[in-house]
């Protein structure tokens, strides 16, 4: 069973995403701060990551670099479709940017393709 890391400042976002992914048959690891992320990255036992960048400072991109170096496929979740964010995300190794709110069908397709 694949394990998915989800990062978001909003607790409710983490809960909803975790519930949804668990219903789809995935394990989840939740993180809401850099401290949480630091601990998880010591032993990165997840397969995929979704990083909701809303509410984080520029240091978030360093963590994206770390994920890239760890060869962990990840997507950036953003509140808006911003060319700068898109460019930065791809430069830092993201597979792509998903604009919130997430369309469930598209999201499922992305997870399945990443899981393969």
């Amino acid at each position, binding site marked *: 069973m694949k394990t998915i890391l989800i990062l978001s400042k909003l607790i*409710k976002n983490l809960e909803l995403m975790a519930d949804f992914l668990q219903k789809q048959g995935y394990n989840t690891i939740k993180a809401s701060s850099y401290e949480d992320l630091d601990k998880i990255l010591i032993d990165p036992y997840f397969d995929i990551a979704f990083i909701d960048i809303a509410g984080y400072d520029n240091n978030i991109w360093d963590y994206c670099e770390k994920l890239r170096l760890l060869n962990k496929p990840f997507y950036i979740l953003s*509140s808006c479709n911003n060319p700068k964010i898109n460019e930065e995300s791809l430069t830092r190794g993201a597979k792509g940017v998903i604009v919130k*709110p997430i369309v469930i069908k598209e999201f499922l397709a992305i997870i399945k393709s990443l899981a393969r």
Partner: protein
Amino acid sequence: MKNHNKGVKLSSGIKGLDEILYGGFLEYNSYLITGGPGNGKTTFCLHFLEEGSKKGEPCLFVTLGEKEEQIRKNAGKLGLKLENVHFLDLSPSSKFFIELEYYDIFSPAEVEREPVTQAIKEKVEALKPKRVVIDSMTHFRYLATDVFQFRRQVLSFLRFLTENGATVLFTAEASAEAPDSDLRFLADGIIELSFSEIGRQLEVKKYRGSDYFPGQHYYEIKNNRGIVVFPRLLFTEKEVNINFEKLSSGIPEIDELLYGGIERGTVTIISGPSGTGKTTLGLQFIKEASGRGERSVVYTFEESVEKIIERALSTNIPIKSMIDKGTLEIKKIEPLIYTPCSFAQLVKEDVEKRKTKIVMIDSTSGYKLSVRGADLTTHLHALCKYLNNQGVTVFLPTETKKITGEFQIAQEDISYLADNVIILRYMEIKGELRRAIGVLKKRLGDFEKTLREFQITKYGIKVGEPLKNMQNILSGAPISIEET
């Protein structure tokens, strides 16, 4: 209540609204209550549920905006008793803000629709309510991914409720961004509420399967009474058997002018400039009615009750004993409190409950100034017609602006309302201001075409012989025929 249609109707809990809906809402149908903020949509719905709970019916209020506690508190202030009404409170709690319940990862449609639907389904299946209120359906718009889904969801939701035995009222908060036009197609009936400077008005815009009383009706929201609806008067109200007997004025000369008097159940305009004695003449007919033991009501818009009493006493009209006997009531109508419909309701109730035979609206210009509303002549016409149909005789003292000179019956074109027109005019004779009386119109019979001198003395009204030796009386400056 007239049964205009097949099918069982549930009372709305508001007497006036039931009259407009010819009995209430058709069972197992759904109705949209729409209007801007502050129009009383929720209160209309609460009356509906209160009525059901009084009859022991299971009633359910689904709130998606206001908290249950707040609704109960507001209902209490309006005198509504909701102890037996069940609530399903789906409004957001303060936790949503304080405990970071906010989310943006999925759309509300994905996250909230299922728990909301489930909660309603469970409650409806457990309670089997006969009456359901959804306040407001607009909330479901935000739980749908698109317009098509919204329409399907609402239709299916309403069917679920009605198939489970409920009659449903639902509110909508229409705005420029989210108009409620789609909900209008889905509902079996629509009641539209509006508020303007002339008052609160409601109109039934649609009522599948039933007739209804069309047009704008006024309503008020009152503490301890809730909503009071005043259906506008309909000309075709049931007629009583009217006996067009002639009512004497008690002054032989006036009766001669009128060939015996005015007919019962007619409208008489008493037209004249200020101070000519219009009210006194009306009171003279009322005095005679009092002698016959008939009850009259004077609605005074301008003068105080005390002034009218004082004036009547000074002209030998025993007004105090008439009031004491109960054959006369004088009601002061405070300005800008009544709408045309609420005033009409006041008159109607008095006529029906207390068997009033004569009504004097003193005066028509006072009515127009004091009663809020548009198209007052039409409303006054409707009221007079209703009173005629009930066999009530109506007097309308009507002021003309010009003291003398160019002849005029009234400032506004209201003469068509009248079956009879009695005119009072000033005339100047040898430097003395005197009054004249005449009859201009009498729909149900002939009348004397001459003018006579009219005097108000401490012994009462005195009317002279026909002024046959004068002409140009209506100009205010008559000349003797001998002089010409």
